[in-house]
């Protein structure tokens, strides 16, 4: 299996190499959104603070969002939608390899490239701008790494499962965009969850949205303190990961059954 993943990742890496410029663009998009949000909150915060966030806090928060979003993002719904509609799923199903592995490998290859760029950018900016520096805390960073892996896995299954909806509807990508629109608020991309109306932030915490991004970000910036809070956050991530794995398995078996009935 390792051999197959090595080959898949190598392939994906090489293809990405061909699309260097495209990847730079997507990277810029991943940076611009938090940058604009930071710009606005910077203006609002002024010399004071907003719900406990001063300018420096916002700066750290949004840089963390940049990095962690890049590490956890998944877009397989678009791939799957295309595979199913263009008949590209056929030859993949005829191989003795589950198509999901290819999607995972591609995901990893892309992230290895882009996340390392963002990390370097963050380090460089931190040299010139003290506000974005994080205290050196390897223990916290290790726990954050765990949370990031959990979040990335969950977002992959969300994306893949949504893509599988293409077996039944032509609007699978629209559903994914709806989810992305909602997660703009609930996952903490536009603002830290603490700045949302409490009821809304509550929903984000109860559902999987906080687990997607906000929790790992808060872990990294040190906003989440105490074993209790950390464990509850990680626990939430594990639960929702389980839920989405289950959703994926149901969608896959039903979807393949439908595919075998009508083909593609």
């Amino acid at each position, binding site marked *: 299996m390792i051999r197959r993943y090595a*080959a898949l990742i*190598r392939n994906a890496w090489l293809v990405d190499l061909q699309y260097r410029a495209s990847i730079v663009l997507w990277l810029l998009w991943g940076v611009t959104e938090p940058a604009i949000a930071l710009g606005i909150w910077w203006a609002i915060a002024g010399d004071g603070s907003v719900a406990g966030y001063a300018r420096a806090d916002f700066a750290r928060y949004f840089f963390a969002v940049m990095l962690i979003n890049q590490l956890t993002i998944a877009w397989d719904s678009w791939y799957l939608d295309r595979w199913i509609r263009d008949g590209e799923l*056929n030859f993949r199903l*005829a191989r*003795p390899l589950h198509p999901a592995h290819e999607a995972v490998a591609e995901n990893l290859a892309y992230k290895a490239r882009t996340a390392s760029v963002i990390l370097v950018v963050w380090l460089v900016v931190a040299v010139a701008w003290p506000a974005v520096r994080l205290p050196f805390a390897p223990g916290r960073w290790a726990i954050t790494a765990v949370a990031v892996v959990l979040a990335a896995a969950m977002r992959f299954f969300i994306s893949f499962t949504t893509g599988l909806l293409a077996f039944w509807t032509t609007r699978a990508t629209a559903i994914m965009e709806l989810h992305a629109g909602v997660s703009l608020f609930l996952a903490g991309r536009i603002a830290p969850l603490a700045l949302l109306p409490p009821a809304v932030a509550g929903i984000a915490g109860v559902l999987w949205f906080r687990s997607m991004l906000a929790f790992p970000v808060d872990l990294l910036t040190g906003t989440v303190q105490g074993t209790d809070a950390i464990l509850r956050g990680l626990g939430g991530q594990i639960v929702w990961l389980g839920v989405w794995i289950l959703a994926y398995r149901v969608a896959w078996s039903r979807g393949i059954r439908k595919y*075998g*009935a*009508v*083909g593609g």
Partner: protein
Amino acid sequence: MSSIVTAERLSKTFQVKVRDPGLRGALRALFRPHYRDVLAVRDVTFGIDPGEIVAFLGPNGAGKTTTLKMLAGLLYPTGGRVEVAGFIPWTGGPAFKRRIALVLGNRQQLVWDLPPEETFLLNRAIYDVGDGDYRERLAELVALLELGDVLQKPVRQLSLGERMKCELVASLLHRPPLLFLDEPTLGLDVTAQDAIRRFLIEYRDRHGATVLLTSHYMQDVTALASRVLMINRGRLLYDGALEALVARIARTKRIELVLGGGDGNRVTAEALAAFGEVKSFHFPNAVLEVRREDAPAMSARLLAALPVADLSIEDPPIEEVIRLAFARGGEEDE
């Protein structure tokens, strides 16, 4: 020798949503959808022995690709049963998939932006081919297909023929006993078509692989297949040796003429009728139908007697051959 592929009363029915035009129809389709049955494959029965090269012949929409997909495990039958290499394809899983190679019409297995070699390496890993076996098999396939130095060029820069050859290499690295090919020569130039056909025969002779291909080209059948299964509208019309089919069905040939200017203007339909049955005549083009064995002689006479600018001898169109076969009451077996 027992069969490697067995199909017994194999059937596939699709349910297609029926939608009336207009807004009311659209609303009705949303809330109370109506379905119509499309019988793509009906009661098809055949058995294939290891090492055979078999062609599924039929016009577009006949059910060839659907049958092939059922053999490969991509679709499940709605009736009858099918067994391939000891597996039921639909539930065969990875063990079954290692025994087959499938090359479908759109041929998208090769990674577009990279050299074909990269896809080969990927397949080597996916099918768990040992390094020694990989090198040996790659060398053999490249030699047989005369691929030379295209392996380093990105796939998008290759010609259609080169791409098809590389598709074949990628599919055969794990040396499966079964090859399923959907229209393998479609869209290729004559040289490439010829090369592919010769390769398939050579490959089968060396490794005893069983080859099933679908096609609507007569030439694929004449050059390749010892046995042809004719399918039309989901039904198996003919299953047997090629010579018998040709002798029985395609008894005529078509002579397609292009008459020259000047004197050509004065050629009449009656004049043409002396040489054979006039199927169509719109100056300067004419199509005559003659008996198969008479075609060469008749062509010579035409060239001598009339101002012919261009002449070619063609098989009758496949639809006509099938229509004839169907009209004969759908015979099966030799």
